[in-house]
């Protein structure tokens, strides 16, 4: 492999889920895709890297701040949904069940990884509240860290007189009951809530 190919393989390998073999395969595919593809990809990568930033209001990834979700006048401003990461926001958007605003924390509280409130967009969240917001929906994950993060936020928000709710959890999104493993199913049953 040439030096330039090695350099690209080395960079691609830093991406999640990409090992040496996959990186090599991607470089080969790139070279076989015709003369225009490589430069077009390089331009697209540069543009994304230069333009995309977290939204100064909600933390969503965007080229303009505030982002199009924050700026959209049709969104319901009384509802604010708190998620850990941008893919969580995208998953909720894809459900078409929610028309309120978002706040992306950037992760969950994780003392074992050195992530405390200062490493997350917690102060930014508090600065937005209460404003027009009536209800905050805590949609952090059902993991230990996600649950602890929800409890932490509930406490930090308690003085604001807002309605604070937590999304139901247990069975993973799209999980057909028969395919969920017995352990997960058991935990979901044990964690049932009264309706």
């Amino acid at each position, binding site marked *: 492999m040439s030096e330039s190919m090695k350099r690209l393989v080395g960079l691609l390998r830093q991406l999640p889920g990409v090992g040496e073999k996959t990186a090599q395969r991607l470089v080969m595919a790139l070279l076989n895709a015709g003369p225009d593809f490589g430069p077009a990809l390089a331009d697209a990568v540069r543009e994304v890297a230069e333009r995309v930033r977290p939204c100064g209001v909600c933390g969503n990834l965007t080229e303009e701040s505030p982002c199009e979700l924050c700026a959209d006048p049709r969104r319901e401003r009384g509802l604010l949904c708190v998620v850990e990461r941008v893919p969580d926001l995208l998953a909720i958007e894809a459900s078409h069940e929610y028309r309120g605003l978002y706040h992306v924390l950037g992760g969950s509280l994780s003392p*074992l990884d050195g992530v405390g409130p200062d490493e997350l967009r917690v102060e930014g969240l508090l600065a937005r509240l209460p404003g027009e917001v009536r209800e905050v929906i805590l949609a952090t994950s059902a993991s*230990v860290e996600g649950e602890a993060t929800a409890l932490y936020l509930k406490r930090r928000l308690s003085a604001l007189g807002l309605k604070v709710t937590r999304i139901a959890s247990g069975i993973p999104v799209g999980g057909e009951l028969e395919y969920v493993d017995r352990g997960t199913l058991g935990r979901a049953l044990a964690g049932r809530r009264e309706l």
Partner: protein
Amino acid sequence: MIVRSLQLEGFRNLATQSVELGAGLNLLHGDNGQGKTNALEAIHLLSSLRSFRACRLREIIGHGLARAELRAQLTVGRAPLALRLVLEPGGRRTWLGERPARDPAEFLGQLQAVAFTPDDLAMVKGAPAQRRRFLDRAAFLLQPAHLLLARDFSLALRARNRLLRTGRFQPEELSAFSETLARLGAELTARRRACVERLGPAFQRVCGELLGRPAAAGLGLQAGWREAGGERGLLGELQAGLERDRRRGATGVGPQLDDLELGLDGQPARRFASQGQQRTLAVALLLALVDEVVGGGAEQPVLLLDDVSSELDAGNRRRLFERVGALAGQVLVTTTDAGLLGELRGAARVFEVRDGRLLARQ
């Protein structure tokens, strides 16, 4: 559940080979250091993804080799299932049939095995951690959800302890992890207690059978917190102990201090049981678990008994093997004692283990 065959490659001193096991009692006979324990360890590893020896996974790879691979063909119910595990210095990989396992939890439930090893002699008199490990494994076999709960609890505990040690946290942050810990902890101890209550009568019965006399044997759970208070109570205890916990940098109350108590003839076995009685009690605990799993309508886990009969007198040994031989499911027993071969002839499939090879005797 039956392990029909086992393929070994690069696993400790064991030669590359395929072993066809019998559906009932399998006896592995051979001198010391030939690979009997290693063969049991291989099955246990496929079951729990950890060795029953205290060791790193990479120490299992045969000296001078780059990787180890285990495959097993199981019969679960009536369906065949193939498991595959590859160990490399970088980590392990698992497959169910041809498909990589989604996560360790999916792989773990498949081959169910329980093991008695000489280390289990310390079950009765040793540190509580070993008894908690047994209890969690037992609870998992009786109710699979226990595994995820125990993991979540341990994660929450380590997180809280880390906050306490660094000392840099917002009060709401520590409260959040304390609340999480209390919720998981209350459920964990409750499940352990339910497990102990199920095992107790079976333990009493099996002890009597192994000792050849009616024995007042019992199990109890000594909780590491005041259980009557429930989740709220545990949270209160965590809050009350905060200063002490901060000084120590560790959480001083909760299920991480639960202990399983074994009693014999109305006395705590930890204080009074003889060497031979300790062995009998530890084996009885395992057999009681097997009975309860089967009694609950599940298949019998594969029972692995390593050097179980040494130090037992003739009567105890005979009763033990009668009891084990009467099990409907699969059992693997190792021994250096040629005398056992005579006692069990006909009932068992016998393997001679020599220099890393298991040779079936006709």
